[in-house]
């Protein structure tokens, strides 16, 4: 199968406009004849479901949480980018486009990124109209800040809770459509399979997490807005429930998986405190605007934050400012994370585990006063104190990198359609816009761009082409077959009756992934990891212990299904990381570094999207390549020095 990205012809600035005109439209009176399924209700899912409902389609939306408002987009803190140029500081659609392609280390598709930058301005308008209370200046206009390495102030924010406010905006739009009867909402319901008939996605199989009932839902098209798979590492900044199951089951039904190894490790998280740790908490990257990152010049074992205050200026190594004088503490996430790892590898890490660096606000407080800092970061400082017991107004914070976001995801074309016709992937669930590294404040932008401003156009073209008669009912044998398979899968898990808990397997998998497929990767380590994952997978299916039955609320059973999928995904991530023997963005291969330890891309060999095709249980997956053409952005080695 040849991958067709369906990128439209024409100059980059006109592609989307032309494409929108060329897309077929569904007659307004006919929209009610089409059914669309939306899985996931984060920014991408809620905005898509609401917008499609407004257009007149019949939408069924699904979330595994108890309410669509809980989706993990809610936890995004820092902000959302938009090329409004309200600050008169030289921003433009083209600059946002350029920054995003460059920031992604030239592994994203130019046309998608340009479209993202174009619609970014509409997103802010939309959210304000919905009543999202963005931060404002005294004159009443919107405030902006510079964020995560950007040289312009284009980030809009709502205190440290931007994701929450944007999601509640999309949730309110979704609620309006639920009230109008255009969206039917299924809470506490998990998608466990995609049904494909005659090569097209025709619906999904779900499990009601309260009653255990397995159900079939048919539709003309299925949208997966199910987020990323950072929880393959067990410890990540994702919510506990975030999982890959919907995307992975779709992958097994023919949707290719793009760049699975592209993982973002966020530099500013609260370090691990012990074996009981269940998740990692992100401290917004905006903190790097005023905080200075440092470790002692010579190793001091077990250095506490309280003791750090006494360390003299000349004995401190502000390693980001030293190595990257022009960007300093604001280097992109992958660079900041890797450098934190280096100083810890050298033994200069701080805290009881030695796996932390300081983020110090003393200078900022001296310069701007405590009040200003409190206004900017008050809630983050409170959160930090609550979790660690340290007061960051008085002692430096301790931070360490943690898995935060996955740039990889289901491969989609320009229309956001996967390799299965009628099956779409939006938001973090797809691979498309961030290349090998996502810039700060770009995830919210992409989720909402896909849901509000891309899918409402592109889905119409598919639906108009197939026609409303081209639908398969949930009574079709393919649905029954798929339901039987899902039920058999559930029973198989329950019948293992082994000795180890699901969490034990998940933690083990996480440690393997973090050690060998985390911030730094090598052929030797990855080869070892592959074998370890295979062994762990075999052990899981032999020895996992799940109590309770299938016809009830059974949390362990839910987790087991997700971990089973993570085990398979983990192996594919390792395969992908092995295949890509270059360093790019968040993917750092030790074999491909410049003499001073910076990532070295190999554009001749690897300027492509690696799209993996599932070939059956325990079979190696087939690699397909989508060549990336850069017609507008000049490929350079990223330098933040």
């Amino acid at each position, binding site marked *: 199968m040849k991958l067709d990205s369906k990128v439209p012809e024409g100059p980059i600035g006109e592609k989307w406009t032309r494409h929108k005109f060329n897309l077929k439209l569904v007659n307004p009176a006919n929209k009610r004849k089409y059914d669309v399924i939306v899985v996931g209700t984060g920014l991408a899912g809620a905005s898509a479901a609401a917008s499609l409902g407004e257009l007149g389609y019949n939408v069924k939306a699904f979330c595994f949480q108890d*309410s669509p408002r809980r989706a993990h987009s809610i936890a995004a803190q820092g902000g959302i980018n938009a090329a409004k140029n309200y600050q008169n500081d030289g921003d433009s659609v083209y600059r946002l486009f350029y920054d995003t392609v460059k920031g992604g280390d030239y592994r994203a598709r130019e046309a998608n990124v340009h479209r993202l930058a174009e619609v970014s301005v509409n997103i802010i308008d939309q959210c304000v109209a919905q009543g999202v209370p963005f931060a404002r200046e005294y004159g009443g206009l919107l405030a902006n800040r510079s964020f995560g390495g950007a040289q312009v102030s284009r980030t809009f924010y*709502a205190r440290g809770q931007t994701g929450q406010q944007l999601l509640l905006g999309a949730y309110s739009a979704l609620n309006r459509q639920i009230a109008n009867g255009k969206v039917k909402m299924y809470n506490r319901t998990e998608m466990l399979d995609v049904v494909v008939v005659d090569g097209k996605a025709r619906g999904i199989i779900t499990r009601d997490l309260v009653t255990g009932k397995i159900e079939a839902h048919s539709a003309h098209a299925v949208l997966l807005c199910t987020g990323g798979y950072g929880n393959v590492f067990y410890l990540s900044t994702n919510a506990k429930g975030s999982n890959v199951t919907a995307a992975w089951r779709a992958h097994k039904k023919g949707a290719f998986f793009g760049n699975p190894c592209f993982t973002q490790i966020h530099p500013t998280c609260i370090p691990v405190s012990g074996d009981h740790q269940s998740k990692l908490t992100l401290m917004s990257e905006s903190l790097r605007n005023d905080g200075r990152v440092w470790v002692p010049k010579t190793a001091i074992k077990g250095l506490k934050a309280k003791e750090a205050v006494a360390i003299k200026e000349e004995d401190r190594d502000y390693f980001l400012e030293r190595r990257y004088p022009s960007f300093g503490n604001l280097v992109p996430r992958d660079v900041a994370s890797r450098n934190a790892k280096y100083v810890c590898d050298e033994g200069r890490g701080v805290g009881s585990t030695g796996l932390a660096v300081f983020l110090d606000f003393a200078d900022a407080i001296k310069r701007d006063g405590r009040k200003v800092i409190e206004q900017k970061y008050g809630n983050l400082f409170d959160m930090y104190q609550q979790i660690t017991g340290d007061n960051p107004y008085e002692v430096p914070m301790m931070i360490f990198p943690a898995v935060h976001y996955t740039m990889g995801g289901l491969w989609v074309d320009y229309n956001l359609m996967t390799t299965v016709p009628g099956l779409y992937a939006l938001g973090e669930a797809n691979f498309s816009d961030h290349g090998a590294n996502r810039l700060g404040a770009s995830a919210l932008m992409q989720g909402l761009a896909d849901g509000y401003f891309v899918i409402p156009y592109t889905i119409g073209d598919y639906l108009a082409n197939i026609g409303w008669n081209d639908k398969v009912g949930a009574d079709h044998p393919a649905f029954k077959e798929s339901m039987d398979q899902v039920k058999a899968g559930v029973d198989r898990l329950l019948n293992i009756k082994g000795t180890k808990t699901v969490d034990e397997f998940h933690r083990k998998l996480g440690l393997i992934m973090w050690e060998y497929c985390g911030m730094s990767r090598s052929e030797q380590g990855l080869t070892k990891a592959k074998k370890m994952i295979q062994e762990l997978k075999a052990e899981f299916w032999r020895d996992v212990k799940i109590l309770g039955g299938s016809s009830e609320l059974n949390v362990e059973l839910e987790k087991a299904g997700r971990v089973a999928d993570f085990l398979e995904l983990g192996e594919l991530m390792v395969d992908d990381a092995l295949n890509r023997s270059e360093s790019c963005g968040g993917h750092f291969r030790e074999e491909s570094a410049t003499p001073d330890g910076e990532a070295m891309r190999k554009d001749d060999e690897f300027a492509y999207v690696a799209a993996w095709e599932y070939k059956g249980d325990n079979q190696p997956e087939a690699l397909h390549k989508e060549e990336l053409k850069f017609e507008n952005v000049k490929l350079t080695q990223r330098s933040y020095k």
Partner: protein
Amino acid sequence: MKITLKIWRQQGPNTKGHFKTYKLDHVSTDMSFLEMLDVLNQDLIKKGEEPVAFDHDCREGICGMCSLYINGRPHGPLQTTTCQLHMRTFSDGETITIEPWRASAFPILKDLVVDRSAFDRIQQAGGYISVNTGGVPDANEIPISKKIADEAMDAAQCIGCGACVAACKNASAMLFVSAKVSQFALLPQGKPERKERVEKMVAQMDAEGFGACTNTRACEAECPKGIQITNIARMNREYFSAMVSSYEVAAGEGGAG
């Protein structure tokens, strides 16, 4: 540290529940409260006893999914979410009682898990501004004074966890509903629909079986996000003004209470 837990166990919505006592002797002070329950559940599974079901997701205090009535207070002794509560708040040897949210509008599904979909239905009744995607004015064409924007944001921070209902002796949802009503009543974008909104949301709140407000302020004292009862006062004003002046009166019996 060592602790004793008295936890409400209930197999399903229609079965009778009971307290069961567990002892844990390897609790670290750095653990979050939910991590302590994780440890308990791992022990239970190993022993062949079904783990305790409880709601949680983000574990960073923002999704609003975690609940738990701990020692007679929603989200426990601190004014934060249960996921942000750490074991250093408790003392060695302490007995901790854990119950689900108690309100007839939040029926129990299993153990400590309750059904809060009533909150969704209240939002669906009017917790939105009726704009479709696209066709909206430029964001800076709606100037909003910083003070108003900040106040709207204060109200908008509600995470919908339900602690206010659990804290209230009347199981009133006034703090939750008023937070959304306030956000939109303050903002110019929300003005065109302010009357119908408050009427519809209050009517739905009553229909869901939440109790009336008697100004005990327990909700405000327990809200993990510091939502203030001034919002309730604002909602009452909005409701009263809507009642005497709006075109359609959606609310039947009851009222904003």
